[in-house]
């Protein structure tokens, strides 16, 4: 293994240990989406009786599951950025950047842990959704194909969000400012991603925003992988994969390319 790979591994281990010690973060990031599925899902399913053809049998709880997997990855990347700010404020990031490795290697190591932690938490939500009675998932590509698609989607989404977090965190000096911008941009994008309601039944202008929203492609792909019973979906897995992968590559590369030595 090269020196840069060993350094990234050391940073990954350190961040994983930090998350393991911060149990409240660990639990809340998995429990919150489950709670949302249970409360919002049950409330909307019985109280509003949704009749969209995309919400199978009016079961809103199951419809929410792919979106909640995406949301977990989204939240985790936000929490990981908190780790970035904590390291910056404590001076540890400066100490790390004084090592022989390039700033890009250090930030890659940190991003890697954010991606891994976010992905593992998202998979935990998926695993719980599978075992919880009352959540019906249809694996149209089969178990193996479906899980592989979910893994690839979550990883690509985490790469994209991690790159976006880096881009923001390297510019916005305070964590409060970071969260403000993140929430201001990402929450509306998340609401317009198809996670909470099907995009083909919203007003035209919302649908347009939905289609230029990269999160839409992640949620759509997750729907294909574990929820939709047939290939007749909103966009199409190939386009979803290409757009999401392209965004992930561009945003993550951009995030790393801006890495300064002094922070």
């Amino acid at each position: 293994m090269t020196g840069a790979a060993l350094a990234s591994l050391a940073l990954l281990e350190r961040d994983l240990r930090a998350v393991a010690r911060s149990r409240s973060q660990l639990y809340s990031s998995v429990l919150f989406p489950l709670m949302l599925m249970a409360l919002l899902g049950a409330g909307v399913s019985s109280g509003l009786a949704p009749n969209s053809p995309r919400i199978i049998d009016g079961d809103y709880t199951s419809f929410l599951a792919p979106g909640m997997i995406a949301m977990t990855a989204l939240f985790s990347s936000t929490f990981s950025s908190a780790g970035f700010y904590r390291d910056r404020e404590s001076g540890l990031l400066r100490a790390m950047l004084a090592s022989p490795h390039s700033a890009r290697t250090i930030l890659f190591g940190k991003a890697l842990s954010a991606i891994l932690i976010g992905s593992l938490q998202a998979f935990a939500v998926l695993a719980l959704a599978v075992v919880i009675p009352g959540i019906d998932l249809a694996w149209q590509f089969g178990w193996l194909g479906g899980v592989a698609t979910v893994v690839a989607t979550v990883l690509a989404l985490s790469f994209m969000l991690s790159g976006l977090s880096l881009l923001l965190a390297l510019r916005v000096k305070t964590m409060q400012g970071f969260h403000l911008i993140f929430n201001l941009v990402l929450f509306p994008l998340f609401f317009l991603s198809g996670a909470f309601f099907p995009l083909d039944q919203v007003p035209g202008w919302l649908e347009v925003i939905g289609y230029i929203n990269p999160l839409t492609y992640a949620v759509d792909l997750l729907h294909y992988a574990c929820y939709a019973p047939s290939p007749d979906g909103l966009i199409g897995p190939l386009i979803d994969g290409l757009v999401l992968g392209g965004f992930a590559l561009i945003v993550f590369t951009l995030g790393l390319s801006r890495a300064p030595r002094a922070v």
Partner: protein
Amino acid sequence: MPSSVQSPIESPSPLQEPAQLRAAGFEWPGGRGVSDVDLQVRRGEIVTLLGPNGAGKSTILKMLSGEITPQHGSVAIFGEPHGAVARRRIGLVLQESSTDDLMTVQETLELHGRLFGLPRGELARRCEDILEALDIADRAADRCETLSGGLRRRLDIARALLHHPDLLLLDEPTLALDPESSAAIWQSLHRRAGDGVAVVVCSNDTAEAESNADRVVIVSDGRVLADDTPQHLTSALKNDALELDWPSPSDDELSLLSSWPGVGAIARHEGALHLTVDSSAEIVPLLFQQFGSRISGIRIRESSLRDAWFQIVGLPLDDLPTQLAAERKEGERVRQP
């Protein structure tokens, strides 16, 4: 730490070359920074960058550490331009303790060692040695959040020394520490210098610099104003230093005072007037005779590096009458590269 342990990294350049900045300059957004800085640090030397807050000491340190690249001039670390090779030779201690509360002392060192590519066995041995040497071995398994300020500082230094650097850069390592902790840290730095490590310390503590540094570099307003041994810097001073509680002397009073024979540098700082004089026995009676009602207190001591700092920097210049300050700057600033 045994000196027989060799760094796993081969030295590609002769270490007889100093770490140096040549006519280096850097301007931060907003205008602050340093310009035209010449500095050489040789192995085994302890050099203190002395100056008030905001003078540019940390910027100089950052140019040496490679955190920032000089916009003018050049930097070389023992003959190497800045890069991964040079950074392997540098140990850096930041102004604020830079530890993660959630990590233990041992984990902090291990992370650093792994970033510097130390093999596991070697790393374990070095951790043990350095923790023993800095007297924190008994806290190895404790989380950093449980450490006192002094212990955190020792951990910062342990981390900076772990990869056996040839150049150790420390930004105010003893700031806000009790005398015992400060003494322990300086003792450790002297040991490293004895082993041939070049040590650069940022400080605004003149007493500490006078006692510990081989050379003192006085920095003010982004410029190096003096670079010499503490002994040489103080030898040009008058014999005695007076500190007068005289909150607001007028321009005329200051001009009159400076015209007296035997009166050297005059500077104001924190509501007091500092001056160096040939003989306090001659000047003090004159002071009370002339300005007695204006002076509420007086302290007399032998001149020290603190007075050399005031004399050279004229701190704070904007408190002195412009003309007087300009004259003093012109006449008293010394530059000895």
